[in-house]
């Protein structure tokens, strides 16, 4: 056998192209069907559906960020909702500052809740949020810095497995309690809401909603390409090696904690972007986004779609949330959480690689029997530990 030119895996696989193709089609079709059709037409997509779909896409980006660290590094973060919420709060603070004197109390600077609490001055950490570039920077920095500090201590102390999962839960729970307090200056229990404008555009307008939807789709597409780029690089191979045999990685001379930290921070920033796109589309951000149950739900999305497949994580997020919308608006509403729990158990037992992972296995087996006798299934990540 001669020196084989083993090409690196393509940046975009078939499933990746299909995924980006579907996103691209949605970017064209959804706005067209919303803006160009008559409201009574059968093809018309109402604006609330546009925002609902946009919300699903931000969840898909959040699921992607979790898959990057859970699927490829084996870090089961049960606190990723915190990074999502921080990105959301950064955007929410910008939107609050845009209200200006149009609030109920008409204060030109202070948001309503501060007037209500009898505050006289804007707290220092609200400075700068009237400027969009600053807020956008905070969307990345707030989750990024939290992930950096948290990961620095956790990975350096070699906290792994279930212990790491527990402290990520504790992290998001602590933030939940903190943000509930009025004294924190983030609107307490009610959070931030009643937004008017974003970059000068009316946040309720159809056109703005459509643009937010398109931006969510673009962010998801770019996030996917970024994750693909990372996981197929030498860096990404080290990540998978850490997932499978961390000790070996250390004895091979890699600083496993640094690799985990980079992946964790990138993942947190992606989650922050997802949160920032989520808030203007749902119109509110409050401390419930920090609730531990939210973070656990993300894990269910990823498990359903297929851990370690990226596309699967996004698909799982959209499917489960569609099911959630569907079932929580009907007779079955009180039973949704049972259904979600049952779904997780069922997927773990019967579909451990999730929808996309199972599909990859099936395709690999079929190819193996067609072309090369004795070939093995393509590299698929191990089922959830």
């Amino acid at each position, binding site marked *: *056998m001669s*020196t*084989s030119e*083993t090409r*690196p895996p393509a940046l975009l696989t078939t499933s990746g192209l299909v995924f980006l193709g579907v996103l691209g089609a949605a970017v064209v079709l959804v706005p067209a069907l919303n803006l160009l059709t008559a409201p009574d037409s059968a093809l018309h997509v109402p604006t609330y559906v546009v925002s609902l779909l946009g919300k699903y896409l931000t969840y898909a980006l959040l699921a992607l960020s979790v898959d990057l660290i859970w699927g490829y590094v084996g870090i089961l973060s049960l606190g990723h909702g915190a990074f999502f919420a921080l990105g959301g709060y950064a955007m929410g603070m910008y939107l609050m500052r845009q209200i200006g004197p149009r609030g109920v109390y008409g204060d030109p600077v202070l948001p309503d809740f501060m007037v209500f609490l009898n505050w006289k001055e804007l707290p220092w950490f609200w400075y700068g949020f009237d400027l969009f570039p600053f807020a956008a920077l905070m969307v990345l920095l707030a989750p990024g810095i939290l992930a950096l500090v948290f990961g620095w201590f956790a990975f350096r102390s070699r906290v792994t497995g279930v212990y790491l999962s527990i402290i990520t839960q504790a992290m998001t729970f602590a933030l939940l309690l903190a943000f509930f307090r009025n004294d924190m200056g983030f609107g307490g229990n009610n959070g931030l809401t009643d937004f008017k404008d974003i970059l000068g555009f009316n946040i309720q307008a159809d056109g703005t909603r459509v643009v937010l939807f398109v931006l969510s789709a673009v962010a998801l597409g770019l996030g996917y390409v970024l994750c693909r*780029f*990372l996981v197929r*690089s*030498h*860096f990404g*191979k*080290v990540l*998978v*090696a850490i997932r*499978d*045999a961390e*000790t*070996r990685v*250390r*004895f*091979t*001379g*890699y*600083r*496993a904690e*640094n*690799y985990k*930290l*980079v992946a964790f921070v990138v993942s947190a920033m992606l989650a922050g972007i997802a949160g920032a796109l989520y808030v203007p589309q749902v119109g509110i951000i409050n401390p419930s986004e920090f609730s531990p149950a939210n973070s656990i739900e993300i894990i269910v999305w990823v498990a359903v779609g297929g851990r370690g497949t990226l596309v699967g994580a996004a698909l799982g997020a959209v499917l489960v949330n569609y099911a959630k919308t569907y079932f929580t608006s009907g007779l079955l509403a009180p039973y949704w959480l049972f259904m979600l729990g049952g779904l997780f158990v069922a997927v773990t037992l019967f579909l451990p690689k999730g929808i996309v992972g199972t599909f990859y296995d099936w395709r690999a087996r079929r190819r193996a029997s067609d072309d090369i006798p004795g070939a*093995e299934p393509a*590299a*698929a*990540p*191990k089922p959830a530990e």
Partner: protein
Amino acid sequence: MSDTETLVRDIEPDDGLGAAKKTLTEALLYLNAVTVTFDGFRALNELSFTVDPGEMRAIIGPNGAGKTTMMDVITGKTRPDKGDVFFNGGTTDLTRLDETEIATLGIGRKFQKPTVFESHTVLDNLRLALKGQRSALPNIFRRETAAERECIDAIFETIRLTEHRDRLGGALSHGQKQWLEIGMLLAQDPKLLLVDEPVAGMTDAETAQTAELLREINANGHSVVVVEHDMTFVRDLGVRVMCLHEGSVLAEGTLDQVSANERVIEVYLGR
């Protein structure tokens, strides 16, 4: 330790069979009076020995003799309670470094249980191990060079896995995994290879091939320390043998000399 003199190996050469005393500055690896205690159990008890540059050494001994603990101490996994561990002619104190730093210095380790990256291809396993950039951020944009590819091809020839390069590490047989792991050590290009039970679970033919492989690696200038129970294999290696017992060196010499030693027979080989 104030001066080098006090670091001269202080164990008695075993009834004249052992080599002359080695000084710190001559040795590639130097252990002096290393003691490790786990909950009162002395896994290593004043263990002292040296490995010369280019030497291959086999270590035998009954279960619990401290063989694996010794490797843990050398590779930074376990910190000794007391004693000195120096590398590179006394220039580097290994007790102050962690696993990653020690690996980067040039000490590679093969585990008792073969440990390869199971969901990576055999080729990617070697790529990951190959000496080179280890920092996270530069590795995002790293590309394989022609020299690296040639180096990997050469290792494939050495470990006889060329036709398996595109299979997953996890799909290899037990023996193939052992070889892949040795190949990964070679790719790291270490000065010293620590090899823990490389032929456990191998067929006789594979065992003989492994002995040949290790001799080849040693002939190429790598120092090797092999821990093994398989006496046929140790004989095949044809190198100096050291028998550990209760955390210290019981006997040292050629295999014949060591296996003729009364105490070795008593505690390890059996009568």
